[in-house]
């Protein structure tokens, strides 16, 4: 009874859903996948035609190797520091009562709402040779010569760290907030000191959030451009900066594309690894963040 009519209704609902999603599909497909595919194709070409020269260069030329070295070192350092600073911060906010937690979380999020360039220049004002920090430290007599805090690796790391902390705090905080207080109470009642309760119960139970945040921070760091460009002072060259150089200075789309492909493969690989670990975690009964 009514079979044809009900089927037609279902088909109409599907058509409406497809129509609603189609603009996003067109933008993603037309403006992202097609150019990216074309760049992928370009990376296997040089002036002589089809070749692997663009990739060979990356393993043979020391300049390229050091670009990858710097990028990985910078990303690892920023990720480790973001974990060291972000995890305790998330813990403190998760412990606060509702209203205070909302305020603190908003403060953490303010960097998200400020333009990247503005924040980067702000660091320049703070950290440069005659900047606010150096001036104050000298005035208080804590240092007797000016610190080189910017236009180098240190400055780049500080600027990136500041931008990345919210990316770590948010998933970790969400995980901590969702955690039942009774777990830590149970651990204490069973005889666990605060330290062993942390290592044996709290950290494992907040690991999914921590892993998600860590992966996010590391992957975004791999592709950083603006901050190293402005705070690195030409001494820090990351993969993205090398890509930009290849395009604007040498007009070598093939070399730039090859770098992009490698960066993409690294990122995808990290996500794949992380998804393996995280799904393993959820298999052991832990809630995903």
């Amino acid at each position: 009874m009514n079979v044809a009519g009900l089927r037609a209704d279902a088909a109409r609902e599907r058509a409406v859903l497809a129509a609603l999603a189609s603009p996003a599909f067109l933008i993603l497909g037309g403006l992202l996948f097609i150019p990216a595919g074309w760049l992928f194709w370009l990376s296997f070409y040089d002036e002589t035609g089809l070749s692997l020269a663009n990739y060979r260069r990356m393993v043979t030329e020391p300049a390229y190797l050091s670009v990858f070295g710097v990028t990985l070192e910078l990303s690892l350092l920023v990720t480790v520091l973001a974990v060291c600073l972000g995890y305790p911060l998330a813990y403190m906010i998760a412990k606060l009562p509702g209203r205070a937690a909302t305020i603190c979380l908003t403060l953490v999020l303010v960097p998200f709402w400020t333009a990247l360039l503005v924040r980067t220049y702000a660091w320049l004002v703070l950290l440069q040779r005659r900047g606010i920090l150096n001036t104050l430290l000298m005035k208080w007599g804590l240092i007797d010569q000016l610190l080189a805090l910017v236009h180098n690796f240190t400055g780049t790391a500080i600027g990136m760290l500041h931008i990345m902390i919210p990316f770590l705090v948010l998933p970790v905080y969400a995980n901590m907030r969702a955690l039942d207080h009774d777990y830590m109470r149970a651990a204490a009642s069973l005889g666990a000191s605060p330290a062993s309760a942390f290592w044996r119960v709290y950290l494992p139970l907040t690991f999914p959030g921590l892993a998600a945040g860590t992966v996010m921070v590391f992957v975004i760091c791999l592709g950083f451009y603006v901050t190293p460009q402005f705070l690195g002072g030409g001494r820090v060259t990351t993969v993205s900066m090398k890509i930009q150089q290849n395009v604007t200075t040498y007009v070598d789309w093939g070399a730039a594309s090859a770098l992009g492909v490698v960066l993409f493969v690294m990122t995808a690989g990290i996500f794949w690894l992380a998804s393996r670990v995280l799904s393993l975690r959820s298999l052991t009964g832990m809630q995903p963040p």
Partner: protein
Amino acid sequence: MSGGALPIAVRELTKRYGQATVLDGVDIDVASGEFLTLLGPSGSGKTTLLMILAGFTRPDAGSLRFGAQEMVRTPPHRRNLGVVFQSYALFPHMDVAGNVGFPLSLRGVSVDERRRRVRTALELVRLDDFGSRRIDQLSGGQRQRVALARAIVFEPGVLLMDEPLSALDKKLREQMQIELRRLHARLGMTVIYVTHDQREALTLSDRIAVIDHGRIQQIDTPRRLYERPGSHFVADFIGDSTFLPVSVIDGVARWQDRVLALADPPAMDGKFLLVIRPEKLAIVGVGAAGGGNRIDAVVEDIVYQGDSLRIDLRLADGAVITLNEPARAARIAALPARGAAVGLVMDPADTLLVPAP
């Protein structure tokens, strides 16, 4: 496997949250090996009291001794108490044996000894072969048992339980109550148990402390609490009671103009309430001869409830009281019709007065 049950002494325990006084000078003594239930409506302070005993909440004032030792400032991990949580709080990243073995590994028990004691604890809660199960593979009742095994495996002198059965369905809950009785009889530790379920409290406890507004209203054996409640609140909170106003003058209790025969008359004159419990009344014919306190009533409604019949009766002054009849065929056949006038009889031993509030 009792590691020596401990007596508990609570003195003048007080806890305020801002303006609200949650515990108002609570005194309790629990004998070693006793099963004491804290019973009260929600917001009465019973859970706060348990949290203070466990060390998760800091009181504003008071003393708390387990055995001879003052514990009120001891952090929870040094109190050596078993705690069973309403949410069970089993660690999802450990299997059943990992959870039960956790307190032992914290105490530096060797791997072999730990394995042996985990097995014994799981046998005790009838989960012999569940050691390698993940927590999310367990049913609610099984989780409850694992939580219990984890709380007793290190042989604490005191076991605290916070509404541990409230997440289970009725049948399982009743089954677990029997198991808890059996375990307590076998292990003999001191138990403090929080519930808002009066039947559960009556079933499990050696004594029950009824709490309201942060004060102990009465602390007594289940039978004395039910049959000799000391106040209107306790009589109302435990059991389905209806109350009729009674005045006692010169030692003679009267409801309206009838004199009531009492097995246990009050020591003082004044205003009282007659406590009428549904199972203490019997229906007799109007004007039938016989002893006991008689009340005339009209049958207002008869509701079939499976195991029993609930009969609502209207008294001459308009008050409605309720009576329970077991649902046996002969009794059902003999029931009066709706609207019929009947006589009700209550034995003097069951006729109970509490002071009017």
